[in-house]
């Protein structure tokens, strides 16, 4: 890890950290977990910054954050089932301004939320979304359809004006 790399990494990381945490917060509904996810991804990015800086570090970070969250959630679901604690983490909206779309996201399941955010907030294709989440294209299409229908039933459209 060379000193010249450090300056460019820290410049990039400081510029992107708030956006990354916001994005992770919308995914997780938990600010602390969002920071944990982003911090771990940043550490991994720093370890290979000499390679990443020439590519698309934002996209790389997004993939790491989502995959880590998906792995954590799937693992957690197995474990909470065993222990019979509530399955769905509550999406903490108390610290947020009353944004209708944020509140609506909270009503989606975690996997619907992930699909919707990747497709319409991160602008990924169906194939790219499937790759990040480790599911098939068909699952992404189906989940997108279900989630959009759910949101539109609340008179909200995450893709309006686009």
């Amino acid at each position, binding site marked *: *890890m060379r000193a010249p790399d*450090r300056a460019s*990494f*820290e410049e990039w*990381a400081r510029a*992107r*950290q*708030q956006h990354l*945490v*916001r*994005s992770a917060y*919308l995914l997780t509904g938990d*600010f602390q977990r*969002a*920071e944990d996810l*982003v*911090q771990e991804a*940043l*550490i*991994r990015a*720093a*370890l*290979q910054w000499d390679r990443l800086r020439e590519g698309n570090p934002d996209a790389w970070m997004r993939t790491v954050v989502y*995959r880590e969250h998906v*792995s*954590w959630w*799937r*693992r*957690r*679901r*197995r*474990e909470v*089932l*065993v222990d019979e604690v509530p399955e769905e983490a509550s999406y903490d909206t108390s610290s*947020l*301004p009353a*944004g209708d*779309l*944020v509140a609506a996201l909270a009503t989606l*399941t975690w*996997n*619907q939320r992930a699909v919707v955010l990747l497709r*319409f*907030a991160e602008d990924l*294709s169906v*194939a790219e979304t*499937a*790759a990040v989440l*480790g*599911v*098939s*294209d*068909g*699952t992404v299409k189906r*989940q997108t359809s*279900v989630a959009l229908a759910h949101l539109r039933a609340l008179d909200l*459209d995450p*893709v*309006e*004006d686009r």
Partner: protein
Amino acid sequence: MNLRELIDEVDVPATRVAEGTWERARGRVRRRRWVTAGAAGLAVAAVAVAASVLPGSERADGPADPPSTEMVITPPDWDALAVNRVRAPSPDAEPLSENPVRHAALVVADPDDEAGAYVLGDDGDWRHLDVDGLVPVGVDEVFTTPVVRATGLDDGATRLAIPQPGGLVVVDLTSGDAERYDVPGSPSYVSWLDDSHVLVADGRAPTGTVVDLADGSTARSPYGPSTRVLADGSALTWDGRGPLEWSDGRIVTTPANNAAGYYPQPPLARDGVVIGQHQRNSVRNPTPGNPPAALSEGSGLVAVDGDTGAPVAFLPLGDDIAATSLLGWAGDLPVVGLVGLEDDVLQTRVATWDYTSGELYPLAVLPSSWVAWGVGL
């Protein structure tokens, strides 16, 4: 406001998460260098495996215990595994019922239909699995997955077990005939216990149901998705909680776990060594004692001593590999699947892993992330 705008509008507290990141990364590099001291950039590293990995021991305050054993670390090389690409099956492949196989070399999920699959015969030709009524497998209330499971083929690779809502479907690959068995619940996991018994389970539940293929009767089983029944009839359960639970009552504590993977898979076990899919920082397995640094910092395949729980080898995922799969054995070596992206398409690069030396021997590149390995290529 649309979602793209929302990311920049949502009001979260100011974060300083980037501060100190570079130093933390440098700290990991230093620890890795310590871990791999003397190994000259490759595989064998002396790693401290604390006494606390042994049953009954307790974590002690103070300096770390001295290294007491060696752990082989296999640096993943995604590109080096890109050999022997298996051509993708054509949608026009012959139906299995019209051209059955002697043995399945392997099975992959249909990339366009989660309810479908393709069987590669040992003659090198693909067949389309033409079984009426198959539906995608539900893994929770919403997500579905393809019908292919790594544990779906029997020992002879002549039958394929498929979990289905309320049932189990067993396809005789040598004839194309399929038999359906009613099973309580909606299993998402299957595993062959012996020639005539299949374990089915909800992939998130700790136990499952055994189906007797002779008469279709079912019985509750103490075993579940994380249990491997071995050739001698004994069983080993290893999941995200950490300990190896042997059917003879032994509970072997280990700093590794078997929590990773797209869906639960039982460990592989042979010759006193157990292979699992380790998940870094598994929430239910706070690593006891002073674990090998590699296990604290990374997820990947791990081999542990079945009697002591001590890690003997680790294959970290690296940046190119999204997931792993335990596919079986080729001689004395475990066959493992490493799942990653190429041209935006998920594929599985199959290799045997010599955990004693750290070598990966590539076998094939498969055009799917959902595969079952039979007699191989």
